C-alpha cells in the first residue's frame, strides 16, 4: 500500500503541476477568470434587485468582531484626523455628480440612519456577525444627484497599501442603491474602532469582506472602471486577481 500511496501522491502532484501550467495559458486563464460573469449573471437573475441579506437576532452577534486587512492606516494624515476625534475628517463625494459634496461626520449623522445585524463573510472562509449603523449610500448619492452616465461608485480609502497608494473598491449601481448598502459609522452600538475602519466604512451585504472598504475618504461616481487603479475596480482585484463581483 506504501507504493500505492506514493504512486497516488506522485500522480496527484504531476497532474496538479499540469493544471498549474495550463493556468498560465492565456485562454485557459481567461476562461477561469470569466466564471465570475456567469456567477454574477446567475445570482442577479435568481434574486430580486433589492433582495436582502439575512439579518440576525442580537443574541447571534459574534462575541468579538474580527478585524482583517489594515488594522490601522498609521499614516501621518490619518493620525492627525484620529487625534482630534475625526472632527476635521471629511467625506468627499464627487465624480459624475451634479452637486459634489464634502461631508463631516456630524453632517452624515444628520441623514436618516439604518441599523442591521448582518454576517460578514471573508473570502478566506470565516464569518463574523455584527450590528452596523450608518447612512444608506442611496441617500448620499441622491443628495449629490448622480449624473446619467454614472455606472459605478468607487470608494477611496485612507489606508496606504504601499507606495502611497490607498485601498480602493467599487460597486455597481444595483448594489449602490440596495437598501442594506450603508456607510457605517458604528459597530455593535459604538463608534467604529480604528481596527474596524474608523470613522466610516462601506457595508455592501451581498458581497464578500474585501468589498467592505474601510477608512473611507472619498466616493466617486464613474462611467467605467478602466481608469480606476489597475482597471479591475479594486485593490485586491488588481493586485491578487480576486473577482470584482464578490457575491460568490
Amino acid at each position, binding site marked *: 500500500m506504501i507504493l500505492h500511496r506514493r504512486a497516488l*501522491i506522485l500522480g*496527484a*502532484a504531476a*497532474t*496538479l*503541476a499540469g*493544471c*498549474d501550467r495550463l*493556468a498560465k495559458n492565456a485562454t485557459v486563464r481567461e*476562461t*477561469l*477568470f470569466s*466564471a*465570475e460573469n*456567469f*456567477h454574477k449573471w*446567475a*445570482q442577479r437573475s*435568481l*434574486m430580486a434587485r433589492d*433582495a*436582502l*441579506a*439575512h439579518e*440576525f437576532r442580537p443574541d*447571534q452577534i*459574534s*462575541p*468579538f468582531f*474580527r478585524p482583517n486587512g489594515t488594522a490601522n492606516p498609521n499614516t501621518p494624515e490619518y493620525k492627525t484626523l484620529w487625534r482630534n476625534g475625526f472632527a476635521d475628517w471629511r467625506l468627499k463625494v464627487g465624480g459624475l455628480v451634479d452637486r459634489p459634496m464634502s461631508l463631516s461626520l456630524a453632517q452624515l449623522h444628520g441623514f436618516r440612519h439604518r441599523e442591521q445585524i448582518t*454576517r460578514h*463573510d*471573508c*473570502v*478566506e*472562509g*470565516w*464569518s*463574523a*456577525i455584527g450590528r452596523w449603523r450608518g447612512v444608506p449610500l442611496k441617500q448620499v448619492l441622491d443628495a449629490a444627484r448622480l449624473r446619467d452616465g454614472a455606472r459605478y461608485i468607487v470608494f477611496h480609502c485612507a489606508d496606504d497599501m504601499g507606495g502611497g497608494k490607498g485601498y480602493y473598491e467599487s460597486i455597481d449601481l444595483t448594489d449602490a442603491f440596495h437598501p442594506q448598502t450603508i456607510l457605517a459609522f458604528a459597530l455593535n452600538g459604538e463608534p467604529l474602532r480604528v481596527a474596524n475602519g474608523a470613522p466610516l466604512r462601506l457595508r455592501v*451585504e*451581498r*458581497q*464578500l469582506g474585501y468589498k467592505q472598504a474601510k477608512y473611507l475618504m472619498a466616493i466617486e461616481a464613474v462611467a467605467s472602471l478602466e481608469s480606476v487603479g489597475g482597471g479591475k475596480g479594486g485593490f*485586491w482585484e488588481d493586485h*491578487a*486577481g*480576486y*473577482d470584482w463581483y*464578490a*457575491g*460568490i
Partner: protein
Amino acid sequence: MDSAPWQARSVPRHRLATRLWHWLNALLLYVLFTSGLGIFNAHPRLYWGQYGANFDHPWLRLERFGSWITLPAHYNLAMSRHWHLTAAPILAFALLFYMVWSLFGHFGRDLAFRRGELAPRHVWQDIRDHARLRFPSGEAALRYNVLQKASYNGVLFILLPLVILTGLTMSPGMNAAWPWLAEMFGGRQSARSIHFIAAFALAGFFLVHILMVVLAGPVNEIGSMITGRYKVPEARP
C-alpha cells in the same frame, strides 16, 4: 488480478450519458477537491453555527494541506477560487441533467433496490462476499449488487447534492437569493463544515471505487466505462 477466464461474450453495460458524465465528474471532482483544499488553506479551521472566526471555537483545526494536493500547488487563494468556481457550476448542471436523465430508465433499471435486497440477511451476505473478494460472475455480474447500489445512490442523490448546496450556501449573493439554504444547514459556518465533510466522503468513495475497480479487473472495468461494452465473467461452478 485479471486472471478470471473471460467468456468471449461482451454486452452493452454503460450508456453514453453515463460514460460522459463519469469522466466529466472524474475531472471536475479532481479539480474541485484540490482547489477546495487550496481555499481551505486560507482559513484551516471549521466551526458549527452562523459565525466563526479566529476568536471563536473551531471543532476542527488543521495544518495547511501540502502543495502536492492543492491547486495551485503554491498558496494562491484567488487562483484556487477561479478553478473552483469555474468547475462548480459545470458539476452542478451536469448532475442535474444526469439525475433527470436517470429517471427515465437508468434509475428504475439499475439503481433502485429490488424487493428483498435490503433484507439484513441479503446485505450481510453481500458484505461477506465483498470481504472475501468474491465478485459476482455470470449474469449476476451484469447487475449492481446492494452495496454498489447503496454507494452509487449515496453519491448521486446525497453526497453530490449536499456538496453543491453547501457550496452555494457559502456565497453571500446566494444568501440573499435563497435564504432557506443557510437555514437548512444551520448557518454558513455549518454549511462550510458539511461541505468539507462531504468533500472528504467523496474522496473516500473515490479511493474505495478505485480499489474495487482494481480488484474486479481494471482492464474490463475501465474499458467498459470507455467503450460501454463489458465482458461477462464466466459463471463460477
